[in-house]
């Protein structure tokens, strides 16, 4: 059975000041994560990818109004009672945050923080929790476990903290790990080490991963499948290799074209003209129409439907056409 199913997720926020006015940063998002697989959620800032991740755990800000369905192994999470959500958080689903330095409690040593989580979900004594924490740290290649556990967050480097956070995520044997831009704050080499680590752990433990990132190269490196988000909608999904070598949606094509390569020596950087529409809800037709190189009248009048393409792929475009990126 599919591990995580997000179906038609829409998140609405009342607009500050005026009543009756709303923004909808996430619209109709549908994606799935299979057990043991990694789904990359790719998009630029503001595309709604972080909100989607937070929605899975029910961690949206209090003003948010989510609709749709989010199911973990068939268990409905959206709108679930707080007790169910709290039981799931940190145990069945664990989150790895972007900035490990701020995600840990700054005034407590790491040991205390591991103890809190482990004892919350598994019970047991502090000694038992401490022993488990040490084992987990060793698994994420932090070997000086006593020193690390005794340290405060500000005493450790970003890379070490991120590994520690992954260890914390593993502590209660999660079935799904949500990684929200978890390598964005790290150096390039450290980021790669962390990705390798995550892969290795996934093979060893068999959890699924929802990997949120804006970095296409990273998504390709790490993910089995990818979902591309634009302005709150999923514009394309499919196996990562195929989507990246033969993108179907014009946005994906443009994204890939924009990535500079070694051969681009001296050439101006390719970029997309225009901007994401300021008021997405006011747009009739396709949200991408104002920037799309292939726009037709149909695009401006009618919003596209998700079209299924061969190879377990979908794209949100009237003219979805898998072809090699320019």
């Amino acid at each position, binding site marked *: 059975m599919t591990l995580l199913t997000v179906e038609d997720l829409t998140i609405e926020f009342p607009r500050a000041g005026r009543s009756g006015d709303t923004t909808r940063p996430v619209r109709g998002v549908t994606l799935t994560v299979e057990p043991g697989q990694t789904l990359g959620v790719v998009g630029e800032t503001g595309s709604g990818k972080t909100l989607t991740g937070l929605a899975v*755990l029910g*961690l949206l800000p209090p003003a948010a109004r989510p609709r749709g369905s989010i199911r973990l192994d068939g268990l409905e999470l959206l709108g679930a009672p707080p007790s169910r*959500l*709290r*039981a*799931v*958080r*940190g*145990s069945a689903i*664990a*989150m790895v*945050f972007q*900035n490990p330095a*701020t*995600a*840990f*409690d*700054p*005034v*407590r040593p790491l040991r205390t923080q591991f103890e*809190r*989580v482990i004892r*919350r*979900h598994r019970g047991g004594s502090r000694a038992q929790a401490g022993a488990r924490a040490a084992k987990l740290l060793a698994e994420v290649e932090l070997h000086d476990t006593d020193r690390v556990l005794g340290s*405060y967050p*500000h005493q450790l480097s970003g890379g070490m903290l991120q590994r520690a956070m992954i260890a*914390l995520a593993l502590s209660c044997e999660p079935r799904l790990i949500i990684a929200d831009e978890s390598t964005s704050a790290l150096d390039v080499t450290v980021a790669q080490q962390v990705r390798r680590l995550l892969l290795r752990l996934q093979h060893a433990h068999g959890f699924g991963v929802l990997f949120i990132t804006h970095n296409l190269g990273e998504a390709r490196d790490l993910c089995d499948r990818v979902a591309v988000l634009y302005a709150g909608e999923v514009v394309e999904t499919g196996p990562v290799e195929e989507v990246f070598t033969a993108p179907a949606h014009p946005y994906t094509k443009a994204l890939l074209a924009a990535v500079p390569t070694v051969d681009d020596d001296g050439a101006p950087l390719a970029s997309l003209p225009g901007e994401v529409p300021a008021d997405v809800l006011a747009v009739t037709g396709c949200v991408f129409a104002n920037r799309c190189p292939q726009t037709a009248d149909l695009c401006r009048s009618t919003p596209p439907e998700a079209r299924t393409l061969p190879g377990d792929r979908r794209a949100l475009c009237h003219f979805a056409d898998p072809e090699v990126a320019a």
Partner: protein
Amino acid sequence: MRRFLFRRAAAAAAVLLGTTVVTFVLARVVPSDPALAYLGPKARPEQIAEIHHQLGLDRSLPVQYVNYLGGLVRGDWGISIGTKQPVTSEIFGRLPATLELLAAAMTVALVLGIALGVIAAVRRQRLADHVIRMLAIGGVSMPAFWLGLLLQVTVFGQLGLFALTGRNDPDLEFTDPIQEITGFHLVDALLTGNAAGFTDTLTHLVLPALTLAAYPIGVIARMTRASMIEVLAADHIRAARAYGLRERMTVGRIALRGALPPVVTVAGLTLAYSLTGAFFVEVVFNWPGLGQFAATALLNADYPAIMGVTVLGAAAYILVNLAVDIVQARLDPRVRLA
């Protein structure tokens, strides 16, 4: 941690020394002549000169300062012009009464203030929040002497609750006298199993303590609220929730712990502020403490007494600030690096 302690303590000692300089200068700047105060307006020149010599006023200023400092250290703080007793015995004899009042007030203030602040932060922008914020700003704006009088008129005058003035009922001396062991009547009554004395002291303590606590409650509640709001928005609180920790733990232990350092600072500052606030409460409630003594001394130009109280006040103030620094460092390890 020890190095931090040492550095701070050394700095505090230096500042204390500085305050003795200020106190000394203030005493010498006084427009009136202490000799005249002793002898009265009809004193003859030789008598005045004799007193000047006795008090060392005919020596140079630096020498006078050294003598003064020496006296402070030795415990010779002069004789009170008003009571003709040594200033030290007057001050230290009355100190426990004031300390007891301060302790009661600060305890109430911390418990109520923090509780109200947390509630206001958790129920932000709702009714409870607005009510608490109004109470807080009211408490902070209220003159202590006025509040004390109001409480006397309403709670005692109209409702007949608690006591009007004084630390204990004068009759208690005959029925269940409190044996002074520590000087703190609540403690002493407990230690000697004096139930009547305990209740009597408590009854007399309520109104003055509440009056004195009004300002600190306001400040502490506001600071707790502001600090909690900030901490609750922090990443590690979201992470704690993401890991399924119970709300009571997340708010009550993690968030509150992180929110406390500025609250501690501010609580220490309100304690320092209340050192002088106690003066007014003692005057209104006829509380036999340091404040009442000081208020009388101020009006009667009893300079040795005033100087003594000033030095003690400064020392207490410095000590409280030092204690605040230490507690802060204990709560937040990052402070120790500063």
